């Protein structure tokens, strides 16, 4: 569109927002001021710009005055940017030719008592938005094709539910399971709380159903080896371990297992029972065929032992083939759902309870298998030491959970499954004396508290106190639990015949490797990390990959099933379309500026190491290339490129430098220039406004998508222009973890700012004048306090000192800026 070229004809609209803005700022004078800015064709003020008449005003001006850039000075762009983008698009303008000045959250709401200064600040913010608007370029959303198939990793109840839902919606699904059978943890459980349904009886039909769907390809005994590509277009390689038994021929008669001479502990029975080298994990296993574990088999050659093959051939099935080999399967999918579940912490690591030393100390899952009628004892609960029926059973909660020595988090479901197991025991053995040692009972969903009451009615005793240790009477094998009963306030010892530990749930073995394969993140505890804890609990930071069930954190069955359905729905948003649109604020490498393009021998490649999404590739002797479908738009590579060869669309160097210039035009030595990341720190500053926290009005904010985008040149330019202080702020990065929405942008920001601070100090600029802080979207108070603190420090230094420092550093700053390629050149270089 011709009208979109050039610096343009800009329209500026100042919103009163009732009295929210107009109560503090003089909107009329702001509009008048805006009309004096270069390229501004028209500037108006209006009571409510977001209301229909306000929007009509813009549309009318676009049509009648031929405006091609729109600036609205109103609330936070996090609030109404989408509204106005839509508005300008409806008037025929590209929606990226719109810019917002945040004069409400960042100005009127937080400086109600300093009206004059607030008005000056609003002028700067408007001038900054107009300057950026002058450099805006029309952008089109990026379209990628979608493979309308999904991959579900993990065949537990959550993964099965996701696969079934996607299959119902008509999508092809690959369901990959590492074990020989699907079913996951739920298949191992006896009953479920709080209804006491038989676990396998309700799960079994789902397992069979998913295996019989024509549009579900079940790959059991398989692992995801490699994943390339991006949303809509993932190329997946799966390794299939050989079964050595052809499932299409095996009729599960079991003749092979009868003759197999090898016995190993049965994983499914958590080691309580035995299985043969050729086996089926449990009677309801799906696929129901037998499998030969080549790690246990004597030899896989007729010379070593071929008893199973002989028996199978004799039965006529002829299903066993010792020559089977590992198979690689490759396919393409549009979305991936990860449902890899959980393991339980190794209880023997927690020495004070003696698991693995005292035979009568067992784990919750061992008890679960023992109560199960199909389990190793046929449903009879016995003491491992002597096979006797216990008369006194004690449960210990929070074994490893809520314990900083092991796992700091609460595993969530242990309180409930312990009550369930205690109730089952009481039901089977009414005379049994049961004590449950707990720290806090957590029974927070529908029907759960009632279940807890039922346990108390049944005479199960709950003792508040975390036992300090368990010791054994070696003559009887009985156990003595040393604890405090807090409700009496007395230390106590309790003797029991059997002790059951509720150890914490931990991420499934191999989760780490899988996250590297998929390029998704884990939280501090090793569980898979969601894109947003509240609003995107199913998404990951990689577009097109979703998580559900206990892989994201310990969860009970209904919650896991609900998340499975949720993941299917999230995936279907993408799968149901032929094309998927990606926001075009991506990075782009200029072929002419990339050193790899200019010098075929150059071994730069810095950008490829900075990208957390593996979106940048650099073929030998070729300039780097960004895959826009994989790029998430943080801009870290842009700031890190030593040759200024990368541009971030809609956040170009030129656009941001022009903003800095406007914000520091008047009295720069008294100002604090703040670069705030969109997701946390900018939102934190918004919250300071919504909370009406008052702070000094000399701060000027620049919005970037990620703190990783804050180029060294931005900071040096700011001091060059005379800035008093500079703040770079991003999502929280602490020992507790990293909240960066782009995985590691803030890590690079930290390195860059800390190095730059040392360099600036060398030039005579006080170190405290460049601050790096982490502010979350919830930390409005912290933002307000930070600005106040910086202002105090700036006042102490005084404008004279600041000017003097800047003046002294100027020649060096100039040299630094000259070394990086002039920004005009960057902007005019051809964008690939």
């Amino acid at each position, binding site marked *: 569109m011709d009208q979109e070229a050039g610096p343009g004809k800009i329209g500026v609209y100042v919103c009163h927002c009732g009295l929210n803005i107009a109560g503090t700022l003089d909107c009329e004078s702001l509009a008048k001021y805006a009309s004096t800015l270069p390229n501004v064709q028209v500037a108006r003020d209006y009571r409510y710009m977001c209301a229909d008449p306000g929007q009509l005003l813009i549309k009318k001006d676009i049509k009648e005055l031929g405006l091609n850039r729109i600036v609205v000075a109103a609330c936070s762009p996090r609030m109404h940017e989408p509204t106005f983008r839509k508005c300008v698009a409806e008037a025929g303008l590209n929606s990226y030719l719109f810019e917002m000045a945040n004069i409400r959250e960042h100005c009127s709401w937080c400086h109600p008592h300093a009206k004059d200064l607030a008005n000056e600040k609003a002028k700067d913010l408007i001038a900054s938005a107009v300057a950026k608007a002058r450099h805006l370029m029309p952008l089109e959303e990026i379209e990628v094709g979608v493979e309308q198939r999904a991959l579900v990793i993990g065949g537990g109840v959550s993964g099965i539910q996701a696969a079934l839902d996607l299959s119902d919606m008509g999508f092809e699904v690959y369901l990959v399971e590492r074990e020989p059978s699907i079913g996951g943890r739920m298949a191992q459980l006896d009953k479920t709380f709080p209804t006491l349904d038989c676990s396998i009886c309700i799960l079994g039909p789902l397992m069979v159903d998913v295996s019989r769907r024509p549009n579900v390809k079940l790959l059991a005994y398989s692992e995801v080896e490699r994943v390339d590509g991006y949303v809509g277009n993932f190329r997946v390689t799966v390794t299939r371990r050989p079964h050595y038994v052809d499932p299409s021929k095996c009729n599960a008669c079991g003749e092979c297992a009868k003759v197999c001479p090898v016995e190993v502990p049965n994983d499914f029975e958590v080691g309580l029972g035995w299985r043969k080298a050729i086996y089926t994990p449990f009677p309801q296993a799906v696929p129901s065929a037998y499998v030969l574990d080549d790690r246990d088999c004597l030899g896989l050659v007729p010379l070593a032992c071929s008893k199973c093959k002989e028996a199978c051939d004799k039965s006529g099935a002829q299903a066993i083939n010792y020559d089977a080999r590992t198979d690689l399967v490759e396919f393409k999918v549009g979305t991936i759902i990860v449902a890899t579940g959980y393991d339980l912490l190794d209880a023997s690591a927690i020495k*004070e309870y003696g698991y693995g030393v005292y035979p009568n100390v067992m784990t919750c899952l061992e008890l679960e298998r023992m109560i199960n009628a199909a389990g190793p004892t046929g449903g009879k609960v016995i003491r491992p030491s002597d096979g006797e029926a216990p008369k006194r059973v004690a449960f210990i909660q929070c074994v490893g959970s809520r314990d900083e020595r092991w796992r700091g988090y609460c595993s969530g479901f242990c309180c409930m499954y312990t009550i369930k197991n205690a109730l089952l025991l009481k039901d089977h053995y009414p005379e049994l004396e049961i004590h449950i040692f707990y*720290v806090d009972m957590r029974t927070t969903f529908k029907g759960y508290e009632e279940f807890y009451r039922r346990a108390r009615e049944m005479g199960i005793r709950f003792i508040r*106190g*975390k*036992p*300090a240790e368990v010791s054994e009477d070696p003559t009887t094998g009985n156990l003595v639990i*040393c604890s*405090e009963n807090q409700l009496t*306030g007395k*230390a106590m010892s309790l003797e029991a015949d059997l002790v059951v530990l509720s150890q914490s749930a931990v991420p499934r073995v191999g989760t780490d490797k899988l996250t590297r394969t998929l390029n998704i993140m884990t939280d501090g505890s090793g569980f898979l990390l969601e894109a947003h804890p509240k609003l995107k609990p199913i998404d990951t930071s990689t577009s097109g990959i979703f998580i559900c069930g206990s892989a994201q954190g310990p969860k009970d069955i209904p919650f896991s099933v609900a998340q499975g359905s949720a993941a299917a729905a999230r995936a279907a948003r993408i799968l149901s379309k032929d094309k998927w649109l990606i926001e075009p604020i991506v990075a782009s490498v200029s072929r002419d500026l990339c050193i790899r393009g200019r010098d075929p021998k150059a071994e730069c490649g810095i950008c490829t190491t900075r990208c957390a999404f593996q979106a940048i590739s650099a073929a030998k002797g070729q300039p780097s290339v960004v895959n826009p479908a994989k790029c998430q738009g943080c801009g870290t590579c842009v700031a890190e490129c030593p040759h200024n060869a990368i541009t971030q669309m809609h956040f170009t160097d030129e656009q941001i430098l022009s903003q800095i210039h406007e914000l520091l035009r008047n009295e720069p030595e008294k100002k604090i220039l703040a670069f705030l990341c969109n997701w946390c720190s900018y939102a934190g500053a918004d919250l300071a406004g919504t909370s009406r926290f008052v702070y000094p009005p000399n701060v000027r904010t620049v919005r970037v998508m990620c703190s990783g985008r804050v180029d060294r040149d931005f900071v040096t330019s700011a001091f060059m222009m005379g800035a008093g202080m500079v703040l770079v702020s991003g999502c929280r990065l602490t020992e507790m973890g990293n909240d960066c929405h782009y995985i590691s942008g803030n890590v690079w920001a930290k390195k860059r700012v800390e190095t730059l601070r040392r360099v600036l100090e060398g030039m005579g600029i006080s170190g405290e004048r460049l601050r790096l802080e982490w502010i979350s979207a919830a930390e409005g108070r912290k933002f307000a306090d930070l600005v106040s603190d910086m202002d105090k420090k700036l006042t102490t230094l005084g404008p004279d000192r600041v000017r003097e420092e800047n003046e002294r550093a100027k020649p060096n700053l100039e040299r630094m800026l000259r070394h990086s390629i002039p920004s005009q050149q960057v902007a005019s270089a051809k964008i690939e």
Partner: protein
Amino acid sequence: MGAIEKLRALTDDQNFRKKLSVCYQCGMCTGGCPVAHVRPDYNPRRMLESVLLGHYDEVLASNLIWLCTSCHSCLERCPQKIELSELLIDLKNAAAESGNIPKMLLERARRIAETGQSTPISKASLVWREKLDLAPISPVNVEEIQTILQATEFPGRLDRTRSNANGTRN
């Protein structure tokens, strides 16, 4: 400064409190405390809670803090990594400085300062040893111990404690 003020000064410090305030009262300390199993009135979990609540009279009641043997079982086991036995040592120091200390312990401190030994070797025990053909006890290097005590300002603190203790009912 009296014992209560001393304790308040110590435990009102925000950094000090921060380390304790993560306690979620699971009772693992008391459950494993060898003293608590024989002295039902001694409860380290409650002691910590009293400190957090500022109930210093409870903390100082009946000289209970002096029952802690510093075996550090609670410290090793605490699921929130609170160094409870270290807190007890701090409490003992604060209490002692204001004279709130059992006379018997004060007497021992004096003996260490003077003889280098907390418990004197009686003549009778020396006779027994000889009868049992045990090797004589090597003499204590009192000078060396006193040098260390001087360097750590022990005598001054002991004097303060003693003069404060004379003013209390102990």
